[in-house]
Each structure stands twice: as C-alpha cells, then as structure tokens.
C-alpha cells in the first residue's frame, strides 16, 4: 500500500551541512500520522478501544493528573522563555522544514492547552498568553506532531533550562492513549510483549530453532561448539537483548558477536524465553504501567533462572530504561552479585575483557571496512557506561578501535551528546511514517556522506536495534549500501580469535591439518 507521498529527493538532499537551517515549509508535515491502534490493541493495554465521547474532558483531567504526578512536566511547561536555542536542533525540523517540528513549537502544542486549563492567566485571558482550548483540530495536531518526535532529547542538550521535549511528547501520547487514540505500531508491540514475551511475537519453539541455527553457523565458521543457551537455570549471566537480534540483519550478526565473546569469557550465560525482549516501548507511549510490567519480566526471569548478573544487548532505549530506571521499576536487585554493575551493558562486558587482555583479535579481518560510529540517542543522552563520565561514548569506540584498523568519527556537532537521531526512534519505526523517517535521517546521512567523502568511510556501527533497522531502510535511499550499517558486536565477531578455533590455527600458521589433529 502506498504510504509515501513526497517530492523529497534523498540523493540530492543528502549532501551538505548536516545541521543547516532549512527553508521553512509551514504545515508540510501535517498529514504525517501513524495508523491508529485498533480496539483490540488498545484494550490489551487497558486503554479505551476508540476515542471516547467525552474525550476533551478526559484528556484535560489526565493532563491534570500527570501534572500532579510529575513536577518535571509542570516545570517544562512553565519554564520556556522562547529564547530560540532549540529551534534548529531537531532532526525532523532540519529534514522537513515544518516549523511545528521546532522543539519549542512541538512543546507549545501541549503548553497552550496546559495554559488554558491550568494557569490563571490562561483561564482569564487566553488570547494574551497563547492559551488555547483543546479542540478536535488541536488533538489532530497532537496526533500528527507528537508522532514526529523520536524522544531523542537532542533539543534538551541545547535548552538553557533543560526542558525535555521527550517528556512532553510522552505525556501527550499518554493522554491520547487514555482517551482511546493510541498508536498502532507501539501498542500492538507492547501487547505482544505481554502475550508472547517479545516485540516480534517470537514463540519459544521458533526462538529455540533460531538459536540452534546460529550455533550451527558459528560452528561451521569457527569449528567450535559456541552455544546460545536458552532458559538454562543456574547460569551466571542472563542476557536480555532486543528480539530484533533474533530476526533482522545486521542485528543477528551482533548476537553472534555476543555469543562468541561470552564463550571466550568462560562465564556461563543464558537467554530467557520469558524475557526475550530488552526493548521497552512503554517508555515511548509514556505509560509507567506498561514500562513497569515489561521491566518486571526481566526481574522474574533473573530470579527464576537464579542468575547472578544481568547483561543487556545492543538496544538504545532498553539501555536507558535499564540504566536509569530498572531499579525503580523492578528493584531491588539485591539477589544479584553486587561486584558487577546491575545491569551491565554488553559493551561494558566486552570492553572489560579487552582491558584485561582476554580477547585476541585479528584486526585485518575488518580491513575492508572503514568505520564510523553512530551514537544512539538514548544511550548518548539517557545513560552511561563503565562508571566514568562519557563512558557511553568512549567504550563503544574503544571496542571498535580494538577490532578495526580504520576508524573515523563524524563531525563533532553530530556525535556524542550532540548526536543526531537515526530518524526512526521513539515508536516511529513503522512503514506508514517512512516519509518523515527518510527526512529525519537527512542530517545523519549528510554527516556520514562527509566522512565517506573525506576518509572513505564505508560502514557505520551502532548499538541500537531501531537505529540498525532504520538505517538499513534509509541508507539505500541516500545512495549508500544497505549493509553499510553494522552492529558493534558484528565487528567484534569478525575479528575475534576464539581459543581453539579455525581462525586461531590459521593465524598461528597451523592450518586445517593441525586443527584437525588438535
């Protein structure tokens, strides 16, 4: 079904200053809306099936409740002084030129309603303070533009007051869910986590078969029986990873990398059918309840399996939820071994082994790759790694430098805490939003084009399932190869020389004959 109508030419627009102020295109994106969740998907999450009759009253009441629960939300709605620092910081604004995609304008969609019903001046003199009734037109604007925010929080880095647009868009989505106007993509997926255990809807039998297939692949490649254990009680580590790692590429190649690293570490580990998903879309729709329910599965799996540690795979927002909120949502984790970070990121795990000299690499295996790294927004601006400031930037890069001879960073204003979203985050990774996804990727594609031109960069690594899926769709549209997006642990996997493997024998000049003997 045709979901894209646009004259946007990614190849022509894919060159230039990544953060160049666009030409304004008022209302250009007003028609961009995700599919509305069906009654079945809504009700599975406890939301009304469709837009309720007294939606206006209910929405205002819900906003009132959120303001009571979150002091931060009220501050964000009160504090803006319209200084303009955020205007050109959103990748969707840079890519679309639609002024409603300026963070301040996006915030104002909620702020004007807040002022009308929750401030004295807005109640008495709405026309003086930019307050507005919550009409059907305003609700339509909300549905459109709060689904053109990937909650990446780049704007909040530049806001002198630290106003977090992500929190505002989460609140707006929460309100819309509560009146029966949910988004199909996110809500259907949350329902699948509740009913099957993961975003994909991958059942235990299929998961088991998939893992067995990967074990065969690794054995064929290395000559070693590297395992991907499932539901093994008494393992030391529970690995929780996005279900995309069991399905998509280059995600699966990253999973192979984790398995090899864990194998080489000698520490026992397991995946879990119950917690076969790291992602937590409860955050995207602003639902504390869904977020908690999803997080509690991980706690339960860890307890049922009796593990000592929890390690997270490459998933951006999962790591934000895990790093920043897991203890609040599902803690305390006093049953885990406190000698290790709770939870730990797979990059921290791998980096630690590299530091201890326990991993041997043949970097020449990645010599055809000239690599850059895309900082994923939730990792960059919502988490940390390694217990050191900036660890979430340094550790993935240190790993990539350890496994690849050619590494080049993109322009400073497009990486680390200023990183640009891939264009598909925050619940926007759905086909009907391809137009806004394509345009939102433009700043990142320009930054990549620059390093491709200047340093001959061929590949970009990431540690987020959404980034990987989004890039494999949009890269070809910007004239890059689809497989130029890679997992960090895919690069690790390419170069890792496992003890007793075919690669080790080759490297040490023993060859196949010696290996057979061994």
């Amino acid at each position, binding site marked *: 079904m045709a979901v894209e109508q646009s004259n946007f030419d990614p190849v022509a627009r894919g060159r230039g200053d990544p953060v160049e102020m666009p030409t304004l295109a008022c209302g250009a994106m007003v028609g961009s809306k995700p599919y509305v969740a069906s009654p079945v998907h809504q009700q599975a999450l406890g939301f009304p099936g469709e837009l309720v009759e007294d939606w206006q009253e209910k929405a205002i009441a819900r906003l009132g409740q959120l303001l009571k629960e979150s002091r931060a939300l009220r501050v964000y709605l009160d504090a803006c002084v319209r200084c303009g620092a955020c205007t050109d910081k959103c990748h969707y604004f840079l890519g679309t030129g639609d002024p409603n995609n300026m963070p301040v304008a996006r915030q104002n969609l909620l702020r004007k309603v807040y002022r009308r019903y929750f401030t004295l001046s807005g109640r008495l003199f709405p026309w003086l303070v930019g307050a507005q009734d919550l009409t059907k037109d305003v609700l339509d604007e909300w549905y459109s533009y709060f689904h053109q925010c990937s909650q990446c929080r780049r704007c909040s880095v530049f806001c002198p007051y630290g106003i977090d647009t992500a929190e505002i868009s989460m609140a707006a989505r929460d309100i819309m869910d509560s009146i029966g106007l949910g988004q199909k993509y996110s809500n259907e997926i949350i329902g699948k986590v509740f009913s099957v255990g993961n975003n994909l809807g991958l059942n235990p039998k299929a998961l088991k078969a*998939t893992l067995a297939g990967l074990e065969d692949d690794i054995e064929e490649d290395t000559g070693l029986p590297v395992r991907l254990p499932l539901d093994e009680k008494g393992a030391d580590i529970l690995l929780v990873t996005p*279900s995309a790692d069991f*399905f998509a590429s280059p995600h699966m190649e990253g999973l192979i990398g984790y398995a090899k690293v864990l194998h080489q570490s000698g520490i026992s580990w397991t995946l879990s059918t119950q917690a076969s998903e790291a992602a937590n879309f409860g955050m995207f729709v602003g639902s504390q309840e869904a977020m908690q329910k999803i997080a509690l599965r991980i706690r339960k799996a860890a307890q049922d399996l009796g593990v000592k540690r929890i390690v997270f795979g490459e998933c951006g927002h999962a790591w934000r939820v895990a790093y920043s909120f897991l203890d609040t949502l599902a803690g305390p984790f006093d049953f885990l071994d406190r000698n290790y970070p709770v939870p730990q990121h797979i990059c921290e795990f791998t980096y630690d082994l590299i530091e201890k000299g326990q991993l041997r690499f043949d970097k020449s295996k990645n010599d055809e790759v000239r690599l850059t790294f895309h900082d994923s927004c939730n990792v960059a601006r919502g988490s940390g790694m390694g217990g050191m400031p900036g660890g979430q930037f340094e550790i993935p890069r240190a790993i990539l430098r350890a496994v690849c001879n050619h590494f080049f960073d993109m322009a400073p204003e497009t990486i680390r805490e200023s990183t640009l979203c891939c264009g598909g985050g925050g619940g926007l990774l759905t086909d*009907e939003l391809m137009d806004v996804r394509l345009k939102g990727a433009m700043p990142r594609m320009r930054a990549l084009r620059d390093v491709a031109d200047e340093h001959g960069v061929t590949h970009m690594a990431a540690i987020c*399932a959404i980034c990987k*899926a989004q890039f494999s769709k949009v890269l070809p549209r910007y004239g890059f190869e*689809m497989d130029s997006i890679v997992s960090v642990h895919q690069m690790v996997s390419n170069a890792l020389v496992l003890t007793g493997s075919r690669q080790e024998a080759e490297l040490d000049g023993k060859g196949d004959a010696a290996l057979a003997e061994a």
Partner: protein
Amino acid sequence: MSGYEMNGTIAEHDEEGYLKDIGQWNADLANLIAKNENIDMTADHWEVVNFLRDYYEEYQIAPAVRILVKEMTKKFGKEKGDQKALYALFPYGPAKQACKIAGLPKPTGCV
C-alpha cells in the same frame, strides 16, 4: 476495512495490505497481492513465498532474513540466494513484502 476482491469474494486486509485471515490465502490471491505491490510473481518469487509459508506453518512466525538467505542459498546457489538477490525480488524487503504476499502477518518490532 478494505479487501482484495477476487471472483466475487473479498479477502479483508489491514491498513497496509496484510491479510486479516491467513486462512483465506491461495495462489491466485498471492498473485493479486503481488500485483498491488508492483511485483510479477516468477518461479523465484514462489520459492521464497512457499518457504515462508512452510516455515510459518511450523513456527507460527516468519523466518529471520538470515534463515531465509541460508535456505535460498541452498536452493539457488550463492549468487542468487544472497540478501541482495532477495531484495531484488522483493524491493521493500523479503521479510515484510514477501510475508504480505504469502498471506502472513507483518513482522513487528525493531525490524
């Protein structure tokens, strides 16, 4: 909700063209869905679609692209079975577009 109309019967589909009831699927319907996607079904397309259906019957989910690639490499050899060749057959991606034609639900999540 709209549907695919064939020989006087209507097979309902969702907003994106995925069949609502996979039990209604048949080869003629697959050809019709493919046509809507601007795809002319060849023997190679059918190999993929048939494999997806067999896999789905066994596992109630579509196979990972990597699994599909492996299977098609076995069938067609390395050149015709790699990921690029699959994308040439199904430009919007073998997972999603081929699933639609095979009458299977859309894979969801970060894929």
